[in-house]
């Protein structure tokens, strides 16, 4: 039989264990609102019993805290990360698409659709009162307003594209920082695991970082050595992080110089770590995009800038979902809208200029009127150039702004013997462009425009060469309604409808993004609820545990005073003097 002193030991262990458990409870309560925290439990276990060879079997020796574990479902983590990266992709898309909607201002009176309507109306009014100087002034002013609006929309889209680039750069920086923190934590975790302990809080912190990383792109996580993890980016299956090492870092492409074949990279999105790649294969690089760089080959991180040759050092990074994918897709989509605005501006300039100057030669632009020599471009001809960004250059010919009387509303040119003030046929033709379907994505020149929608009275395609004699400047007189007519192309679309389609495309895109964000929100709320139900801290539960451990602690303490009394009996009461 064990002695009273050995019972003291049992009590001491009991008090220590309850105290540890209370410590865990207080840690839980303290972290009740900490992001990524998983509730911890002290696992109590009986200590080795004492076998009494003489007496009745084994006698317990008390309790011990065997381990402190966290409550976590790793399968749920994987699911949450996958859905988080989908949510992030659509959130970033929604953010930008909503801004683009604000740029276009449809469907309001100040949107481009309405401004274009006023432009056509002005021509229609001019065709009705071709003698009126006011009507001409209104045409010039409405056209200038329209050109400004197109240019303004385009500039705003361009700014937005630059913004998206900045955000990508910042996020590349963030991703690098998260990856570095993960590798650091991997090191610390490894040290604890080697010592045979459970690094609960470190694991929580790493899981939180991995969650944050999953907002940027989607990846697979696999367990590595001694508590480490490996991260493989999807869909390229590129191993980017293994235990304590970043194998593939991320770099931001700041500048691509097609002419010299030089590409400027910011390693880790850090503009102080500039690397220039020479002799680059330009198809691989696109400004504003992201590359993986081989960090094992990259050790020269002391002196910048560094020059590398195009080859194995960097490779194209493609991402599945996540905000990085979202922003890349946005910058692509902004480009589409820009292209569409360019097509709109170019076809407007080509169509109006061809009819107004009655010439398929865009390079000539003269005026003088009553001393003859006409052929005046209504819009500046550089908006017709396929190699230029038409939306950026469209503007009304300065000569017309200064003197709207130069606008030719009639069939004949000023100064010709047949000229008449009351003829509004040319203005009418331009007004009719509003409802004329043309293949505006495929005609790139005035010649193409004329062949697309002008027919002679026999229904033959009109080319500038066909009727050289019928007008003074080598082209058929397009405003001669008897011999030529404008016919809608069955494969074409009107300029108004073309713009409407752009708006519809934008609307559908953002509608999808909004729907996905709200779906993913619901899904993630559910998953998050499940995670909280496993890993979250319940105050009620902790309070109950607290009382439970407190009472046990008190009972153990009581035990000491009982043993003390027993010892008092032995020491002071047993022998009477």
């Amino acid at each position, binding site marked *: 039989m064990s002695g009273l002193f050995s019972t003291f030991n049992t009590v001491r262990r009991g008090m220590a264990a309850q105290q540890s458990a209370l410590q865990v409870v207080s840690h839980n309560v303290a972290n009740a609102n900490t992001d990524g925290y998983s509730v911890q439990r002290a696992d109590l276990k009986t200590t080795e019993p004492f076998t009494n060879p003489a007496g009745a079997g084994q006698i317990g020796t008390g309790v011990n805290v065997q381990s402190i574990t966290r409550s976590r479902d790793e399968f749920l983590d994987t699911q949450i990360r996958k859905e988080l990266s989908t949510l992030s992709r659509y959130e970033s898309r929604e953010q930008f698409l909503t801004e683009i909607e604000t740029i276009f201002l449809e*469907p309001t009176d100040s949107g481009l659709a309405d401004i274009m309507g006023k432009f056509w109306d002005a021509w229609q009014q001019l065709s009705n009162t071709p003698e009126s100087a006011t009507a001409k002034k209104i045409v010039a002013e409405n056209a200038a307003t329209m050109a400004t609006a197109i240019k303004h929309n385009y500039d705003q889209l361009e700014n937005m594209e630059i913004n998206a680039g900045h955000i990508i750069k910042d996020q590349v920086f963030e991703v690098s920082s998260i990856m570095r923190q993960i590798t650091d934590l991997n090191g610390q975790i490894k040290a604890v695991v080697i010592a045979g302990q459970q690094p609960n809080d470190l694991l929580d912190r790493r899981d939180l970082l991995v969650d944050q990383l999953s907002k940027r792109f989607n990846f697979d996580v696999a367990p590595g050595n001694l508590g480490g993890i490996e991260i493989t980016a999807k869909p390229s299956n590129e191993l980017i992080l293994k235990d304590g090492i970043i194998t593939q870092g991320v770099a931001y492409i700041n500048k691509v110089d097609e002419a010299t074949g030089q590409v400027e990279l910011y390693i880790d999105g850090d503009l102080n770590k500039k690397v220039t790649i020479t002799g680059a294969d330009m198809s691989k690089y696109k400004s504003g995009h992201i590359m993986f760089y081989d960090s094992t080959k990259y050790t020269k991180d002391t002196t910048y800038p560094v020059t590398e040759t195009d080859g194995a050092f960097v490779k194209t990074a493609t991402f599945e979902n996540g905000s990085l994918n979202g922003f890349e897709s946005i910058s692509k989509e902004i480009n589409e809208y820009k292209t569409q605005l360019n097509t709109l501006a170019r076809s407007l300039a080509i169509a109006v200029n061809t009819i107004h100057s009655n010439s398929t030669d865009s390079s000539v632009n003269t005026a003088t009127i009553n001393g003859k020599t006409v052929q005046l471009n209504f819009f500046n001809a550089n908006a017709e150039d396929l190699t230029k960004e038409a939306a950026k250059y469209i503007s009304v010919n300065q000569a017309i702004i200064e003197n709207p009387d130069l606008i030719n509303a009639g069939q004949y040119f000023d100064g010709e013997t047949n000229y*008449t003030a009351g003829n509004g046929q040319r203005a009418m033709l331009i007004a009719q462009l509003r*409802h004329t379907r043309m293949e505006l994505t495929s005609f790139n020149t005035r010649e193409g425009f004329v062949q697309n929608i002008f027919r002679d009275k026999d229904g033959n395609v009109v080319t500038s060469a066909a009727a050289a004699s019928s007008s003074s400047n080598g082209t058929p007189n397009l405003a001669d*309604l008897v011999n030529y007519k404008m016919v809608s192309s069955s494969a074409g679309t009107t300029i108004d409808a073309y713009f409407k389609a752009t708006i519809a495309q934008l609307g559908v895109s953002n509608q999808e993004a909004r729907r996905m964000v709200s779906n993913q929100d619901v899904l993630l709320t559910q998953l998050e609820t499940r995670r909280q139900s496993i890993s979250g801290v319940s105050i009620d539960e902790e309070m109950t545990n607290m009382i439970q451990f407190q009472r046990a602690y008190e009972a153990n303490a009581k035990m000491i005073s009982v043993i003390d009394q027993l010892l008092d009996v032995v020491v002071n009461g047993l022998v009477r003097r």
Partner: protein
Amino acid sequence: VRITNKVLTTNFLGNLRNNLTNMQKYQNQLSSGKEVSRPSDDPFRVARTMELTANINANERYAKNIEEGIGWLYTTDTALGQIGDAMQTIYEKTVAGGNGAYSEGEREALKLHIQQLKEQIAEVGNTSYDGRYIFGGDKTNVPPFTTQGVYQGSANGLVREFSQGVTLDIGTKGNQFEELFTKIDEIISDLGQNKSPSDRIAGLQQSMENVLKLRAEAGARSRRLEAMMSKNEDETFNMTALLSKTYDIDVAEKVMEYKVMESVYNASLQTGAKILQPSLLDFLR
């Protein structure tokens, strides 16, 4: 399922945010009076709205063209009527001039009268509408007739568009009735020579019929424009009604929906205030 405090707050916040988003949607709709305010609200509704707005605006522009065309043709009609009347008088005078009993003096008086009428016709030929000469073809800024009745206008008509792809020439060119001056001159010349102008009557009648025909043509065109006007108005009305259906909200319905949403929102706020408060801590002493 184990429910923790964070589960409650997360769920509550999520639901509250949803309710608030819905509230905002209804508030936007009610304050703007429009179903949609951006393309993503309903891309097809927005595209339809843009299309209808554009068509209504174009139609309203065509209505102005038609109005102007009708005014132009009414003026033409009145002017041709005046010419017809003057010619009727000339006809009567010419018949009278054929009377063998008329003296040279009397014929001279007739001649002077007819000359006056001829100048009157030439003046009517220079009638203008809104500052533009109506009988000059597309040469609207120059008087089409000299006082002697020589036409100096253009041979082109006035082609205008009155609805999508529908063009009509609303001009009546002076050269279509210019010959009547020659006829009148012949009569004047006969009378001046104290001759009976009876031989000229048939020719004059022809000219009168010609003017009548031109007037009938102008009338027919103005009736056509009137028909187009009523069609135009119908179209605008229908499209406006359709636009209203597509773009405008049904206020009563929206207010009801908003009220329902509001009560849901209030309920969730109240519940939140209640469920998030108590914990075991409230009961521990």
